[in-house]
Each structure stands twice: as C-alpha cells, then as structure tokens.
C-alpha cells in the first residue's frame, strides 16, 4: 500500500508550498542523530520519524523507568527496565516502517562520538548532563555538523542551533559562545533531581524537531546564532542573539586525537569522594560511629524508615556542617548525584579528618536490592 503511494503519509505537510515534494525528498534523504531518548528526545524522535526523516539514530544507554513515563511519552509500561534506544526504535518503526532507525544502546562518549556523528547530517542534543552537552558540542564543531540544542530547568527551556550557517552568513557559533566552561558540580541541579512537568520537554522537544525540519528543508528562519528561552509558567519567550567569541575555539580540542584525550567527565571528577555500593552501605546502618544523612529536599518520596539517619537537604547542608558528628559520614539521595555533591561539600570542610562517603546510585537502588535479597 505504502509503496504504491509513498507520499500519502506525508500529504498534509507536502501541501505546504514550503515543503512540497522537493522538501519531502530532502527530509527522506536526511540523517539525524538524536542523543538522549528522554524528555526532549522522545518528542523529537516521534515528530522526526512521523515527518519522514529518512535515517534517525538514537543514542541512549539508559533503561526505561516508571518515573520516566510522565514525560517520555514514547514508552509504555511494558518497556520498563528495557533499553530506551531499542524500545524507541521499535515504537518508531511501528509509527513509520519506511524509514531507517539506528539504535545505539550505549553512552555517547568522546571515544565513540566522532565515528557515530560523522554518519549523520544533523545532531539533536536531548541529553540531561553537562558532560554530554560539552562533548557533543565539541564533536559537532570538529566535524562541522549543525547541532540543534535544547535544555530545560524546572519550568524553563532553551533552544538554539549551533554550528550552522545562517542567511546573513555570520560566523558559526557554538555552545561555548554561550557558556564557555562547564559549571562545577554544585552549581546546577539536573533534571533527574529537579522537578519537571512533562509538557515542558514536550514543548521544547517539539521546538527542536521543528528547527531540525527547518534546517533540512531550508525554510523559515532557523534559530541559528539565536537562543530562545521559553517559560512555561508565564508562556513567555525571550530571544537572545549570539556572536562568535574569539576565545571560544581555544577551548575546543584541535583534532580528533585531542578530543579523545579531553576529559569530559565533569560530573564524575568530584575529587576525593568515595562512593559506597549498596552492599557496602548496609553494614554502616548499624554502626554507631557512622552518621547517615538524607540530603534530598523536604517532601521527597519515599520517606526512608528502618535505620537511623539525619535529614538535611543539600541546600541547607553547608550551614549545618559544624553540627555533624561521627567519624564516618555517609550521604544519600534519590539517584546518587546530589549525595556526591554533598559528600564533596563535607570533604571540603573535613578533608581527611572524617571518612566521607556517598551512596552510589541512590537510595532507590539500595531499596530495590534489599527487596531482592
């Protein structure tokens, strides 16, 4: 059926004179790599696949969890525990079997990024951490690939296209023209820890997909050298223009070899913080010399019962450090990220006078393991 009428699927978008048959052909011949099949990646993938982008790559090393489903709307209950890249691939193939979907169910790193990105025309960044964002940015600069960037924080989103030529033929800009150097660990919460309504990545992800389509079809005024911020609470947008800064290129590795040597693991280079896995953590629960601290914010669930611990949210930890007792201090949170920041804060105060640990992968992971045993 589809082979006889290949364009029926795309009829309504081809009715637009800006798309037409020529535009549809461009879409079908285009190759887009979507990094991160999360809150942003899901709408991007669905709309690009629906629009007939001919080849779509999906990079994600994560598995679907129940707490993803309120915003990662491509996934279903049956997908929980399974690879996001593989489940998204199946779902998109059902949506549009006539396009090619390439899943990469591993993490994009500076060791594999250049080879993968080289296969595509455009990269869409839907990742949730600064390490990946800077790494992807630098890879796109090195390979000269347009990067459709977006990021969210609670009720706000940012969208921009980097490393693409605009009609005015201005110098190319990249993410480092906006934020030259990555923030340190305790500067910004990430989405896994800060709250988010599912609609925000939905809106911002659709904006990314729209910008990608505009770039491919060569229509409209894409957000090249412009950053759009959107606030879902006020429904207001604010647009800023970007110019290439002379210093930026010096921050980007010169070639592939330098790129592979560069350390992008910002979130994990917290020095001096030792992580305990669930098995090593358990014996400390009955150790009178160990102080265990829940650093999640007030009201976060589940409430932890069954062992003695303090509850001091990360935001208030610094002012409470002096009161902490115990020769061993162990921090925990939901996923193990904030507890690592907390452990770093404690280490900055106590150095080696106390043993400071963070519970690796968070309390949920520990609870799951307890249930299994």
């Amino acid at each position: 059926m589809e082979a006889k009428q290949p364009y029926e699927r795309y009829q309504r978008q081809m009715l637009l004179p800006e798309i037409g048959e020529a535009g549809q052909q461009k879409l079908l011949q285009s190759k887009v790599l979507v990094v991160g099949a999360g809150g942003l990646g899901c709408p991007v993938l669905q709309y690009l696949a629906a629009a007939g982008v001919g080849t779509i790559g999906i990079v994600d090393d994560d598995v679907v969890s129940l707490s993803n489903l309120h915003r990662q709307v491509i996934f279903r209950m049956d997908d929980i525990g399974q690879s996001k890249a593989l489940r998204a691939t199946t779902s998109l193939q059902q949506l549009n079997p006539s396009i090619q979907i390439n899943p990469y169910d591993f993490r994009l790193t500076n060791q594999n990024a250049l080879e993968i990105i080289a296969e595509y025309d455009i990269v869409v960044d839907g990742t949730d951490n600064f390490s990946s964002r800077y790494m992807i940015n630098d890879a796109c600069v090195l390979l000269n690939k347009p990067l459709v960037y977006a990021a969210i924080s609670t009720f706000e989103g940012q969208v921009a296209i980097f490393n693409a030529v605009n009609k005015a033929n201005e110098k190319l800009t990249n993410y480092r023209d906006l934020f030259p150097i990555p923030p340190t660990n305790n500067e910004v919460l990430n989405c896994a820890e800060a709250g988010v309504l599912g609609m925000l990545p939905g809106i911002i992800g659709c904006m990314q997909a729209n910008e990608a389509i505009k770039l491919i079809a060569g229509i409209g005024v894409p957000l090249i050298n412009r950053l759009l911020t959107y606030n879902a609470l006020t429904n207001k947008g604010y647009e800023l223009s970007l110019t290439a800064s002379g210093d930026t290129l010096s921050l980007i590795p010169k070639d592939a070899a330098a790129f592979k040597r560069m350390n992008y693991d910002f979130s994990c280079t917290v020095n001096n913080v030792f992580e305990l896995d669930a098995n090593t953590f358990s014996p400390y629960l009955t150790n009178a010399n160990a102080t265990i601290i829940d650093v999640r914010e007030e009201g976060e669930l589940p409430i932890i019962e069954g062992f003695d611990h303090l509850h001091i949210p990360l935001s208030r930890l610094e002012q409470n450090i002096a009161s902490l007792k115990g020769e061993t201090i162990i921090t925990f949170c939901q996923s193990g990220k904030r507890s690592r920041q907390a452990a770093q804060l404690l280490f900055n105060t106590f150095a080696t006078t106390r043993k400071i640990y963070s519970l690796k992968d968070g309390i949920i992971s520990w609870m799951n393991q307890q249930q299994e045993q």
Partner: protein
Amino acid sequence: MLNNTTRVNVIVFGHLLDITKSANIAIENVSDTNELVQQLELLYPFTNMRFAIAVDKKIVNENTPLNDNSVIALLPPFSGG
C-alpha cells in the same frame, strides 16, 4: 559615566530566580556589566553561580558599557533533558 542616575533593568532566568525571588530587578548607578555583577553580588548570594549575560538581547562575553534603560538578561546554563 557621569550620569549618576543610570538605571538598568535586569531579567533573571532559571535557578537564579530562586535566589533573587524576582524575575525583574532594577539596578542604579552602574556603567558597565562588571559593575552590575559586582552590585548584584552585594545584593544576592551569587557566589558559585555561573551565567551568561545579555545586554539588550545580545549575549556579551566581555565587559560591556550600559546605558540608561539597558535591559540585561542573566541566563544560567540548563542541563536538563
């Protein structure tokens, strides 16, 4: 700048708003972005915060002179996806 009644409007984005509590701040008697940031740091605990600065909707990477009624946006990096 000799005019000592320079008044600029600062718009705050992202988690900077958690600190300032107000999305719009008026600041007086600042002649450039460096002075503005110094003023803001006196008013708010911005230590350890990183943000891009836009003057009249243009991202600036260097100290930039401000005019009366300039609009300055402070934009922290977002990582969420």
